[in-house]
């Protein structure tokens, strides 16, 4: 295990999250159990004040987890300089057996924790506090993935071995990879590209139809297939190398850190429609703001990522 300043910062924050998350977990259980919104007893007012405090704690934990995901990737990218064979975050992530699953789990948690933040916001801005019990029950459930993520992250950093030679991203994201990623390469990349644009078209159609459920489904599909299409089809155009498919090298200085922007657009766009859609299904209403934001971020992402192959074709007259 090597303790760089970034790893120390992440581990310290994990400890803080565990401590305050644990306190919030215990208090949440009490609030969820005894909350009666129509009563005006002393207990209910005490719970009312406590719920505000606990909401603030959870809010800060989940809000911090979002930028910390980017910081985790940045840390892995920085560690590639000291891990033999690693050229970017990909080599570091894959140097531990569960590294890739941890990264994917973190992405799923971004949506889960983000949903809680939206629910909390909807609850705090409604004078009847309609979701107080629900949000604390959900936190009790979401505390499990939070602990699992923290546990995996601690396990990941303690398992890192700087003397072990790891594969570089060129090997990991190729048809010859020994992982399940190689299965993706068995399908023609143009098919992935068409599925990606199809999902985007579906999400636009869902926006037009004003259906929260359709928005949830289409945007979750878009998130999944956008990542696959990015690896299989678009990344070679970003790197201008036909065999380079790494989704992590995009985050490096050589490519102007464009990956941070692209991933932020993709995750924000699909998050607003997916999480906002679930919230609307719970509330039985239609919040146009979520879908507008989603459409905006998704469209900018699609235009941005499409410009790479287009500009390559215009400059060179061929596709990769």
């Amino acid at each position: 295990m090597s303790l760089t300043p970034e790893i120390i910062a992440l581990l310290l924050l994990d400890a803080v999250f565990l401590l305050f998350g644990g306190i919030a977990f215990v208090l949440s259980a009490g609030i969820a159990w005894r909350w009666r919104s129509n009563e005006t007893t002393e207990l209910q007012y005490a719970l009312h004040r406590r719920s505000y405090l606990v909401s603030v704690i959870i809010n800060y934990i989940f809000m911090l987890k979002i930028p910390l995901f980017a910081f985790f990737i940045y840390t892995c990218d920085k560690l590639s300089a000291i891990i033999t064979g690693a050229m970017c975050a990909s080599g570091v992530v894959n140097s531990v057996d569960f590294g890739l699953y941890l990264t994917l789990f973190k992405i799923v948690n971004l949506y889960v924790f983000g949903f809680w933040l939206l629910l909390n916001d909807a609850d705090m801005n409604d004078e009847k506090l309609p979701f107080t019990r629900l949000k604390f029950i959900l936190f009790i459930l979401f505390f499990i993935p939070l602990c699992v993520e923290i546990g995996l992250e601690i396990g990941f950093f303690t398992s890192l071995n700087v003397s072990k030679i790891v594969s570089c991203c060129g090997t990991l994201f190729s048809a010859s990879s020994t992982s399940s990623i190689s299965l993706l390469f068995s399908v023609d990349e143009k098919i992935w590209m068409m599925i990606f644009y199809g999902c985007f078209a579906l999400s636009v159609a869902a926006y037009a139809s004003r259906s929260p459920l359709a928005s949830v489904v289409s945007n979750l599909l878009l998130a999944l297939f956008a990542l696959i299409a990015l690896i299989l089809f678009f990344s070679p155009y970003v790197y201008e190398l036909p065999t380079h498919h790494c989704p992590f090298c995009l985050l490096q200085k050589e490519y102007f850190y464009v990956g941070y922007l692209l991933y932020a657009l993709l995750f924000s766009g699909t998050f607003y429609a997916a999480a906002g859609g679930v919230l609307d299904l719970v509330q039985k209403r239609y919040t146009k703001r979520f879908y507008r934001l989603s459409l905006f971020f998704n469209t900018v992402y699609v235009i941005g990522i499409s410009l790479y192959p287009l500009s390559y074709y215009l400059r060179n007259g061929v596709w990769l």
Partner: protein
Amino acid sequence: MICLHHVCKRFAQGDEAIEALKDVSLEIAQGECVVLRGASGSGKSTLLSLIAGLAQPSSGEIRVLDREISKLPEHLSALFRRAHIGFIFQKFHLIPGLNVEENVIAPLIPANLPLHVLHEKARIKMEALHIDSKAKRDVKRLSGGEQQRVAIARALINDPVLILADEPTANLDAKLSAELIEHLYMLKQSGVTLLIATHDPLFFDLDFVDRIVELKNGRIV
């Protein structure tokens, strides 16, 4: 307009719990002027701050304009106050360092209204209270009566439907107290609901006061 239902308020003082309000139930209709009478420490100010949503009761229900203000989250009760309630404090609570106009405008600053609208609203209120000539003067350099009028203008800037006044004449001499009562009378005439907490006998024989409610040791008697 205002409906209190079995309201209790306890404060902790060390290991001891002080019961400031005990099972208070009260209804005040729209446009009514009610004087809340009681000695110091009887719970008048506590009751006003609960009605304004500045504090939460220990138990019981408080409804203002059909909204359960006792259970509103803090930011929503602030919005509610800004939209519907004007509060006149005993010690004025003007912001030192700001001039008269800026103090009057202060409650509306979070509302993000255009500046010219804020100035126009402030001008109307200041004219009505005869302090427009001192608009640019620092509030520290005003007399007690002038400061009270600034505090009233500030309480009225959002055109509230409910005015809560806590010992409004405590720092005023007889002449200024009479002036203040005149302003309150005009407010009552315009349909504003008034709830005045005081132990000043001046208020007990006023024609426009509809009701006097007496508080003693946290209870309505």
